[in-house]
């Protein structure tokens, strides 16, 4: 249990400081002579007053309350919590990368533009697309850019009847939310008994009011959409474009490319597939790839290479561009890491990563299939989903199993997603975990299932070995306290 759970504000002592500034003789201006007095702050700014050591201890201690890939197994389905190589962080920390300004003359940032160009080229190859933009800041942001590109394409052709986007019932929540932000109606299409998109159902929804179909392949159940080529053919026949949600690309690098499956637009999650750290929820990068016919609509600027001079430039001359989706050129600090990973792994390494991710998922599924209900037969890709409803007979739920796992020092899988599996437990081990790690995890699950029979209370009251026990999330939402307010004396 934590001994000191004070906020940094509660450690503040007036007069202490954790900074210094160079000694220099600044001009003797009165601030009021520079900025009108009525504009100047009167009240104190209640930031903490603490020493450097206070800050170091405070945040070091806080960090130790976190579970992370660096500290333990993290089989969080759909999130690809693979190892994040330290090399990527070190190269991203080069001064020549971190201390460059977006509006420096382009001739002074040729190395950075080359890096972005190389990243684009590699991503094109991996995905089978013709053009890539690195601008989107996250997966959902990539979806946004991608759907806007599709929208721009239809509108440019004078095709204004397309008002809907088809999304499977197993889709990530970002898909329908993104469609909504682009002004589309969402049409949900069901999965069949095999856990893949129901071909007849989706075919019946394809007409000239549909702008796009958003698919994840493998889908969120970890199953490859076997009908993908047929879906693509049918969609294109009706003038519908196919969007690939790249969240699950870790299963297929070097094996099959979304571009070859018939997808017109996709986003990558560099923070999943290409090993950049998740950083407690971001920044990620949602680079978007498109087929050639969508190039005119890409956000500006596009990073290009001058074939004659070998220099790199930023191209703003795209009159049909959707404009910009964020300021500047994307999360460059993330792109550096992703390229370092691509350079380290190479073509064979990326393929090996996907293969071992798939091998690990199938192995773990095999180890658990007698203990947990696996609703879909056959092989899986890089993840699989179990149905935890068998726990109910003991009066416990998937949530309790997840909380109990915390006591064993591993992060639980994603739970209650996808929505089409009751009490879902979504497990993605990733390729960087060893056979022993998977076996240990399977043993933990088995132990917890035994405990569910013999001592369900143990599950319901878990975790007990974590820095805090279960927290009141409902109460916290009813009357939200979202900032610290100093106590009145």
């Amino acid at each position, binding site marked *: 249990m934590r001994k000191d759970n004070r906020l940094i504000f509660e450690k503040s002592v007036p007069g202490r400081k954790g900074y210094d*500034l160079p000694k220099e003789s600044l001009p003797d201006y009165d601030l009021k002579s520079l900025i009108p007095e009525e504009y100047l*702050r009167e009240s104190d700014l209640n*930031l903490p007053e603490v020493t450097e050591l206070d800050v170091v201890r405070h945040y070091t201690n806080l960090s130790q309350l976190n579970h992370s890939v660096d500290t333990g197994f993290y089989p969080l389905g759909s999130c690809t919590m693979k190892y994040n190589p330290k090399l990527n962080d070190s190269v991203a920390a080069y001064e020549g990368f971190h201390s460059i300004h977006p509006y420096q003359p382009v001739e002074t940032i040729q190395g950075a533009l080359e890096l972005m160009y190389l990243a684009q080229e590699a991503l094109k190859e991996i995905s089978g697309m013709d053009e890539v933009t690195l601008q989107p800041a996250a997966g959902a942001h990539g979806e946004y850019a991608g759907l806007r590109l599709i929208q721009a394409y239809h509108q440019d052709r004078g095709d204004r009847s397309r008002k809907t986007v088809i999304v499977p019932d197993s889709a990530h929540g970002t898909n*329908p939310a993104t469609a909504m932000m682009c002004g589309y109606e969402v049409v949900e299409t069901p999965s069949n008994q095999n856990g893949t998109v129901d071909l007849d159902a989706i075919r019946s929804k394809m007409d000239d009011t549909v702008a796009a179909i958003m698919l994840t392949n493998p889908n969120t159940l970890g199953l490859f959409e076997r009908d993908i080529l047929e879906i693509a053919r049918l969609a294109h026949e009706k003038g519908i474009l196919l969007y690939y949600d790249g969240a699950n690309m870790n299963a297929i690098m070097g094996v099959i490319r979304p571009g070859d499956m018939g997808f017109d637009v996709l986003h990558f999650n560099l923070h999943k597939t290409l090993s950049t750290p998740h950083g407690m929820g971001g920044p990620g990068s949602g680079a978007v790839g498109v087929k050639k016919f969508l190039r005119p609509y890409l956000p500006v600027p596009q990073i290009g290479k001058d074939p004659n001079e070998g220099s790199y430039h930023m191209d703003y001359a795209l009159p049909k561009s959707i404009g910009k989706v964020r300021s500047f050129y994307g999360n460059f600090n993330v792109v550096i890491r992703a390229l370092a990973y691509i350079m380290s792994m190479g073509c064979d390494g990326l393929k090996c990563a996907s293969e071992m991710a798939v091998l690990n998922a199938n192995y773990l599924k095999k180890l658990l299939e007698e203990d947990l209900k696996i609703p879909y037969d056959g092989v899986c890709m890089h993840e699989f989903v179990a149905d935890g409803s068998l726990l109910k007979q003991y009066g416990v739920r998937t949530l309790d199993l997840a909380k109990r796992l915390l006591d064993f020092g591993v992060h639980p899988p994603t739970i209650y997603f996808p929505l089409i599996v009751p009490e879902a437990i979504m497990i993605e081990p990733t390729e960087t975990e060893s056979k022993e790690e998977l076996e240990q995890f399977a043993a933990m699950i088995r132990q917890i299932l035994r405990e569910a029979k013999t001592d369900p209370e143990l599950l319901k009251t878990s975790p007990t070995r974590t820095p*805090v026990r279960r927290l009141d999330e409902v109460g916290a939402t009813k009357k939200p306290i979202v900032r610290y307010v100093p106590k009145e004396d």
Partner: protein
Amino acid sequence: MSSKYIPHVPNEISEMLKTIGVQSMEDLYQDIPIKKRTCSISIPEGQAEADVSRNMKEMAQRNQNTQDYASFCGCGVYHHYIPSVVSSLANRGEFLTAYTPYQPEVSQGSLQVFFEFQTMICELTGMDVANASLYDGATACAEAMLMACRIKKRDRFIVSELIHPEYIQVMETYAKGMQITLDYLPYNHETGETDGQALSHMIDDRTAGFLVGYPNFFGVVENLEGLRHFGKDLFMVVCAQPLSLAILKPPSRYGADMVVGEAQSFGCHPYLGGMSLGYMSSHNQYIRQMPGRIIGESHDLDGNRGFVMVLQTREQHIRRSKATSNICSNHAHNALVATIYLSLLGKQGLRQVAINATKKAHYLAEKIDRMERFRRKYSGPFFNEFVVESDFPTEEIHKDLLPQKILGPVSLERVYGSPSFHHLSVFSVTEANRLEDIDFLAARLEEML
């Protein structure tokens, strides 16, 4: 193929395949159509760490950077001195390699950091609630526009022409998607302030709100009181450079409904504009309309204080197409960086950094005011940057300054992509600019032929 990032040795692979009950990896990929499989992707073979490191260094060295050069570039991205403690703490693997705090019992580190971040943003802006970050200043402005239109149930929004042009471009993208009409509020070409009076003529019953900068894109500190007066029934959004709020009155004092912006200044390296940190703050009454993650205080079964994500039913993973936004990943790690930076600088330090930037910027401005071929363009009060009109194109200035190891100023012609900003540039100064560099810059400008 073997990689130090992949643990499997050949006999383990065989054992695992055997346990699964298949012959080969091919069998695991049986659902994938054979005719579309890739033979190989055409990217180079993998390299050893030492080689990747060297090749990356070579690219890094071909960038002239603000550590080696005195920089006067600003316009939304600023160079500051970043204390060593910031990267030393932020790069701890427990922070860097954790994901979204979906399991609060093992995420108290992240959650408490975000709660502290939200508190710091509220302190600076004077607002009641802040979220745990957005991507950048531009998307923060766009999300604020959407939120204003949701709250007011209207479909027009007014943006000052003196908002960062890239932010306006992003707002235009988002407005188009939701069929919101953007109107542009002009500015006074003498003072460089947004024209408040024009606001009163632009409002109709479809107008939800307006957005102004503080300071604005030209560096001028806007008269928020006047703007509030002319737009009194509108949802007022202020895009504030948060460092300036260490010395300026918080926008809450002028009745802002929302304060948003870019907090890269707080310990984040410029990274070509990539290490951005969007922030968003508002009043309690609007919390349920806010996008993005929000962290709240709670307690565990033993009554110990702890933190959790609150109001998740606003978010896409619960509400899907009815969510307040599609945002999932945010810029959490950059928020950690800002929180550590603000803790170190603290009450006095941040104010001192802001004062030093103001004084040094005015020191440079005074020198420029004495030059014949350079003049300050606008008369309004400014914080740490200002627009200068010169007798030469900005490219000429760069050509002269670069060999002297000076970067900047930012060319407005380039940023706006328009010849009407010919010969205009923005000089930006922070606490990290040494006085001798400012003197040297001024001397060079004087000597330009």
